[in-house]
């Protein structure tokens, strides 16, 4: 029985319920629907563009998949001789740099205090170039062009730094300072031994036995993909001829983990170990006697040009590097040293590699010289499987530099004193920083930073940070504002490599001349950024006609055509091609023919752009006049220098600081990209923080447990890091990665980890004047976690 009242009640209830339930249900549905990310797929025509990666100096040729106005994928260019169709993790992450949310929107002018991104405000390119150009013109008109300083980083071998440096010379300043590169010490060793100014190139894939003296061969090597490809061949590319890799270092690096043997020497004694091996080889007479007799000088006592007697290396080895001495100094048992010596001398093609540890860590010259001795003793010089020297690509010379105020300026002494004071160094950035800070011998009025972040990635970051603040006009060319850019007056956003045309020359460590070409993958840059090279061309036009005449190209394309026309005129090499093409070109050139596959410059232009570039794959082994340019025409063994082994550290209870550069963040860049932060070290599964490797025995002595926070303190500064207890590092040492601890660098880098470069003692390598990255002693104690850490 349904009364009216009951029915009404029911209806009202149902209505209210339905409303409530409906709202709740719809709310739930909205919540459920929020599971999907709102993504708009790319639309438009699809194409493939060839470019060159510049996330490290390796310069891998890449293929970019572009859909509409988006670059969606990067792969190695299979025809490119450096990448061979492969890419390293940095190259794979390059799209994260292109689309990084913290790239500078456009030119930024500082309005507030230095060091803070919020002090900057947007400006137009016209304002930026107008103001900077006017100031530079004023300085030049005042007759002080030398007061403008250019600091270039260890970045790519593209046109940006090349044009910048030419600009500076034409402007009239001698202060063209390059930050130290990882290849510096190896290059100086090559200069001393062979008289050639170049980074050595290794013929790894033809070697049978490789003795790596603490090198980062399989990590942040000069051209990592090239080296890793060669390593694969060295291991498994030749049936029945698997190469052996022996790694000597106080720390089990990623390279060491791939080795067949890890020989854990005491910190700083890699070179001593190598000389112990050399002494054993010479002592047992196992060296390549015909080669040594014909091409090596300095093994025996002789007289130099001035008639002074020089001690022969043989006597130095016999006196200073006897087995028991080396055993005591390195901590390696004598039988191991002897066995390595015999294996090294008897293997088909042996190769010793000096301790280049990454783009920022060149290693000590002493150790590189020691590696050179081993190579010389077994004839691994300019031989297959040995140390090669690359020829420069035959690019045309650029228009002459102007005279007048420009020439006068160039004649002034350099602020960094390189050259006269440091004959082996081309630049001395640390001394530059001191000179700018002190204002002597003259004041720096403008500082241009191209791909350089010395306030983070140099041997003296704090000094640089102080120096930068002394300069009235600081301009940083960078994409994501870095530590130094935060201190600058202007941030001029550099375009990403996928946004510009470019031309890269041979990367260090690659034994053949090559020119890689890049086309812009995106027609419009993601942000209001410009290629650095074009900015300098524009500045030249704005400042003075003579400057513009020295850089006469209206844009990058014009410059590229100039270069390619010159290349065509050189009448050698070929466009990049398949392995078959490569073999064909090699065979033809070996027989004295030239088979380029192109006739006109236009044809070279087109075909080089279709393949990735130009190269000359033919290597003429044993062209001694090219590779041995010492006075004697032989490989010089510098017994005099090798007598001066670095002194063993005093036993003061402090630990040796071992720095290393994980490939993802090597060279002080990479931490900006989240995919790279996530893979810092597979051995410790470390990511997103700075860790410090300590031997468990040492840690026990210090009362430190695994994953404790510790303070690593040097006389200069201190950092906080996470302790990782591991037998992968020798006792009485602490190993810390370089590359984290940025102030700038965007959301994924800023404030993550700590920068151990700040700890470095201001020590110099006594043999060449490079910063000594291995001389710092530190103390370690437990600490409170750094701010913002869990």
């Amino acid at each position, binding site marked *: 029985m349904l009364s009216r009242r009951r029915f009404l009640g029911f209806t009202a209830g149902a209505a209210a319920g339905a409303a409530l339930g409906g709202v709740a249900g719809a709310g739930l549905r909205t919540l*459920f629907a929020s*599971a999907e990310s709102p993504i708009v797929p790319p639309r438009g025509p699809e194409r493939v563009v060839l470019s060159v990666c510049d996330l490290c100096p390796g310069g891998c040729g890449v293929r970019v998949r572009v859909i509409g106005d988006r670059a969606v994928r990067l792969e190695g260019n299979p025809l490119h001789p450096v990448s061979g169709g492969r890419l390293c993790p940095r190259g794979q992450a390059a799209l994260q740099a292109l689309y990084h949310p913290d790239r500078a929107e456009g030119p930024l002018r500082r309005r507030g205090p230095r060091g803070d991104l919020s002090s900057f405000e947007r400006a137009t390119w016209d304002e930026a170039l107008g103001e900077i150009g006017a100031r530079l013109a004023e300085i030049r008109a005042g007759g002080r062009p030398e007061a403008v300083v250019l600091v270039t980083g260890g970045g790519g071998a593209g046109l940006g730094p090349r044009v910048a440096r030419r600009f500076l010379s034409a402007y009239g300043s001698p202060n063209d300072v390059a930050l130290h590169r990882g290849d510096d010490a190896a290059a100086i060793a090559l200069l001393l031994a062979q008289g050639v100014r170049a980074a050595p190139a290794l013929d790894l894939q033809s070697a049978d036995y490789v003795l790596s003296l603490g090198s980062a061969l399989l990590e942040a090597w000069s051209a990592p993909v090239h080296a890793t490809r060669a390593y694969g061949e060295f291991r498994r590319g030749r049936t029945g001829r698997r190469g052996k890799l022996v790694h000597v270092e106080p720390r089990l690096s990623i390279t060491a983990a791939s080795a067949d043997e890890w020989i854990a020497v005491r910190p700083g004694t890699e070179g001593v170990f190598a000389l112990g091996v050399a002494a054993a080889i010479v002592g047992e007479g196992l060296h390549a006697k015909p080669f040594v007799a014909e091409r090596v000088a300095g093994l025996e006592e002789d007289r130099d040009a001035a008639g002074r007697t020089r001690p022969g290396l043989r006597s130095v080895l016999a006196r200073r590097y006897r087995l028991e001495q080396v055993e005591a100094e390195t901590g390696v048992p004598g039988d191991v040293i002897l066995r390595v010596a015999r294996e090294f001398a008897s293997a088909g093609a042996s190769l010793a590699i000096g301790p280049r540890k990454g783009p920022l860590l060149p290693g000590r010259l002493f150790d590189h010289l020691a590696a050179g001795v081993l190579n010389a003793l077994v004839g691994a010089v300019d031989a297959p499987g040995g140390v090669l020297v690359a020829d420069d690509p035959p690019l045309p010379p650029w228009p002459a530099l102007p005279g007048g105020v420009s020439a006068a300026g160039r004649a002034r002494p350099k602020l960094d004193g390189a050259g006269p004071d440091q004959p082996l160094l081309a630049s001395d950035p640390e001394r530059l920083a001191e000179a700018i800070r002190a204002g002597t011998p003259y004041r720096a009025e403008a500082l241009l930073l191209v791909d350089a972040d010395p306030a983070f990635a140099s041997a003296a970051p704090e000094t640089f940070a102080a120096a930068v603040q002394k300069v009235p006009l600081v301009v940083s060319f960078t994409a994501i504002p870095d530590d130094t850019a935060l201190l600058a007056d202007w941030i001029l956003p550099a375009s990403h490599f996928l946004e510009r045309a470019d031309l890269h020359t041979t990367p260090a460590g690659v034994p053949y001349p090559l020119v890689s070409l890049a086309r812009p993958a995106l027609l419009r840059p993601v942000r209001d950024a410009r290629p650095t090279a074009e900015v300098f061309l524009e500045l030249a036009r704005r400042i003075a006609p003579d400057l513009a005449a020295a850089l006469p190209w209206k844009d990058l394309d014009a410059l590229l055509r100039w270069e390619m026309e010159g290349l065509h005129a050189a009448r050698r090499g070929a466009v990049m091609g398949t392995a078959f093409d490569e073999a064909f070109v090699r065979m033809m050139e070996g027989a004295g023919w030239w088979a380029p596959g192109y006739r006109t410059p236009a044809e070279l232009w087109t075909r080089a752009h279709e393949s990735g570039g130009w190269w000359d794959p033919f290597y003429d082994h044993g062209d001694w006049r090219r590779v041995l340019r010492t006075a004697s025409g032989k490989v010089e063994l510098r017994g005099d220098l090798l007598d001066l082994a670095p002194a063993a550290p005093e036993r003061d209870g402090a630990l040796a600081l071992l720095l290393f550069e994980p490939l993802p963040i090597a060279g002080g860049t990479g931490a900006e990209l989240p995919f790279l932060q996530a893979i810092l070290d597979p051995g410790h599964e470390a990511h997103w923080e700075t860790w410090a490797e300590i031997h468990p025995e040492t840690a026990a002595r210090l009362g430190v447990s695994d994953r404790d926070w510790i303070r690593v303190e040097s006389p200069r500064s201190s950092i906080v890091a996470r302790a990782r207890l591991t037998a992968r590092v020798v006792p009485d040492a602490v190993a810390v990665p370089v590359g984290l601890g940025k102030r700038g660098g965007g959301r994924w880098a800023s404030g993550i980890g700590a920068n151990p470069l700040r700890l470095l003692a201001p020590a110099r390598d006594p043999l060449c004047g490079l910063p000594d990255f291995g001389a710092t002693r530190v103390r370690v104690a437990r600490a409170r976690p750094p701010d913002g850490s869990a």
Partner: protein
Amino acid sequence: MLDLERQDEEPLLAPIMHSGRGFWLLAACAGLLGFAGLAAWLVQLRRGLSVTGLNVPVYWGLYITHFVFFIGISHAGTLVSAILRLSNAEWRRPITRAAEVITVLVLFFGMGCILLDLGRPDRALFVLRHANLRSPLLWDVISVTTYLAASTIYLYLPLIPDVALLRDRLPRRRWLYRPLAVGWTGTPRQRRILHRAISVMAVLVIPIAVSVHTVVSWVFAMTVQPMWHSTIFGPYFVVGAIFSGIAAIILAMAIVRRAYRLEEYLKPIHFNNLGLLLLVMALLWFYFTFAEFLTTYYGAEPSHMAVFLSKTEGRFAGEFWTMIVACFVVPVALLARRRTRSTVWGTVVAALSVEIGMWLERFLIVVPSLSVPRLPMEAAPYAPSWVEWSLFTAFLAVFILLYAVFTKLFPIVSIWEVREGRERSVADVARRVKSYLPGRETVP
């Protein structure tokens, strides 16, 4: 006679007639916690399981722990009451219902835990639409639903005469009681049918209950993960379930007794008897635990040992040894001595300790095996988040609230069964006892 009975039964009906301040306070608190849980759930729906403490490789945490825990407690009722019924244990009469209600209510929360654990709760019905019968999780779905249905019926059947009583005696809520009483008038035929039905259900419910917890254990045991992949898991889980279930009954009884002044009905002897059962289960539980760990230790398979060590001396050692103390040392110490066992507080402390211990046991089954994966990986330690905890407290609170509401709607002590016991048992038992005695049967 009838009046006397009425007077005696007054305390049983009192909670249904009146609700004191205590009840409303409880309802308010529980409701508040329940709403906090609802808020937490909405947060989880919005931001996904990232609001939990779960991670790779600890993909399962509190939600699954609580699923196992609640399902375990659900064995309280039905199984214990069915066993006692079938074995004609006379002392069961005042406690069966209090136990059965736990079962029915807690099963919902067990299933709710699974819903909380789903990354896509909106797709929960896929388990019916796209059921993969090879998945132990689906076996769970089937057996838990069956168990829920069976134990609801099993709760309902003995409720009928009492509902009829309420229908006849209470002026209010006839709309509820009349349909539920299904025309019960207490005729001999109705009684016969009811007794038969209850017996059938009691027989049916036991294998179902055993299967439920066996299947819950198989969710773990059917994988190849260390210290999950074990044949002992089925019986081990069943024992653990009964163990925690009995403890839950003791706690529920103690609270009801105190709150509704049912000292006349729930006497120390009931606690003593349940305490004895709990003691037996504690010993059984320890036996299984010991067997499980000893087997692992002697096998010394590295991946198993890693989990073993994480429990006995590693990251979970604190929880592990607390569990041993709470599940074994404390209850055995309290229950083995008659002096403590025969008191209410003695058994209650033992039961409370067992619940804590069994919660830890569930946690220690779910989490450590996942925390130490076979292939090394940097595993962030699992720490449950506020969302997981507040959902747990919400579940507990709402469970307690619903339990209280039940006591407000139905007598928590079965009136007719107690009455039946009073009327018939003495004679029944006497007859039964005589039948055990040697000599000729002297039954008239």
